[in-house]
């Protein structure tokens, strides 16, 4: 495993590796995205309770799930960066953070848009909603922290540290928020139960999920390449590469 990963720590190798990967990832992301959405939006039956508004599920659920997946990916990169002192991993953290934040925001916004017809309010202080909001804050924290240092290196390292600390916090927040709600017995709105999903809806959903995953990988690779170029601009290999373009 390490034999395979070790050369990737070198910026130059990683740059070319990502360069090769990006078009494939992007292509398959677009393909699955189209497939999932056309199938999901066009060819699934209308829900007898919710009408057509439930179709937002094809954006909401994958982005919600992948917002957490992105955080995990970011935290793993951060952990690698701190323990093995790998610079490229630091850059990966910063490459993933904004994508994760956007996913989180999409999940929140689509959820709110869905909640208005369902619950009659844009926002309720439900456990899942609250923890998703806090996830957004965690992403913002990582990004803001990076921006607050004029020394780029320090900023990247510190942001990695926070990303790692945040991952310990993620399950804690998740569960405590859940308990908080049951403890209080205050919520007047019954939480949305797990709707048992018809297979005809499940498949497009799973495809969309894959699409979001691929898109995350593609965008992360792309951003990582940019970051490598930015940080290594003084190196001869970058100059050679630029000259070739």
């Amino acid at each position, binding site marked *: 495993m390490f034999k395979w990963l070790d050369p990737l720590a070198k910026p130059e190798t990683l740059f070319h590796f990502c360069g090769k990967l990006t078009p494939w990832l992007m292509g398959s992301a677009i393909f699955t995205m189209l497939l999932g959405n056309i199938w999901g939006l066009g060819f699934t039956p209308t829900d007898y309770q919710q009408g057509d508004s439930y179709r937002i599920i094809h954006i909401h659920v994958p982005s919600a799930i992948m917002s957490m997946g992105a955080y995990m990916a970011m935290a793993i990169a951060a952990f690698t960066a701190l323990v093995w002192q790998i610079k490229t991993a630091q850059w990966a953290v910063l490459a993933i953070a904004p994508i994760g934040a956007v996913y989180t925001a999409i999940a929140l916004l689509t959820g709110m848009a869905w909640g208005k017809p369902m619950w009659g309010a844009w926002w309720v202080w439900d456990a899942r909603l609250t923890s998703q909001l806090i996830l957004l804050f965690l992403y913002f924290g990582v990004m803001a922290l990076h921006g*607050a240092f004029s020394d780029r290196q320090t900023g990247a390292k510190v942001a990695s540290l926070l990303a790692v600390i945040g991952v310990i916090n993620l399950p804690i927040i998740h569960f405590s928020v859940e308990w908080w709600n049951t403890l*209080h017995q*205050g919520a007047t709105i019954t939480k949305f139960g797990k709707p048992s999903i018809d297979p005809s809806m499940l498949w497009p959903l799973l495809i969309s999920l894959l699409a979001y995953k691929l898109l995350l990988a593609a965008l992360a690779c792309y951003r990582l390449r940019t970051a490598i170029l930015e940080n290594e601009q003084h190196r001869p290999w970058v100059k050679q590469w630029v000259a070739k373009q």
Partner: protein
Amino acid sequence: MVKFGVFLKRELRLLARQKSDWLNPVLFFVIVLTLFPLGVGPEPNMLRIIAPGIVWIAALLSVLLAAERLFKDDYRNGVIEQLVAARHTLLAFVLAKIASNWLSTGLPLILLAPVVALLFNMELPALQAMTLTLILGTPVLSLLSVLGAAITVSADKGGILLALLILPLYIPLLIFASAAIEAASMGLEYRGQLAVLLAIVLFSLALVPMAVCSALKINVS
């Protein structure tokens, strides 16, 4: 006033260089607001009742925190020392600081009002009243916080001292602003409260900048 322009540009440039300077107060404001439902409980009616007070307390705290370090860098680097030595440009400098503080914290809070209304399920009239009180009130917040920052600039640990000096001055603002929002949410007239807020703004606009200048002079000598 040409100088005011130059100085304001400098402050805005500093803000642009560090986006966190204006992003953070906004995020802080939102985070403090989310703490309340977590601490007090998610009951919507309860939240709607306490919302006006909480919004204003959160606004106060975020402006205060943003102002805290306003003069610190310039003091430590000797910039203020030299402005005091140069004398005539000090007031323009202070006005630029106040303006940039408001632009970077007060203004975003006003723009954020709809989001707040959403989080707390506020109705349209309450939202309107909240926006109006924020428009009138945030300049006062900025003025007072800048004053506090100037007073404590050479104090060895400014942070909390600043908060202490400013919080009592802020009480009238808090009372009238939250009363206005409350009145609005019950469908009542609230022009009276707005008039009081207006008076407070004008009063502090007239007095505070001079006070800031002399506070800086005292701190340098």
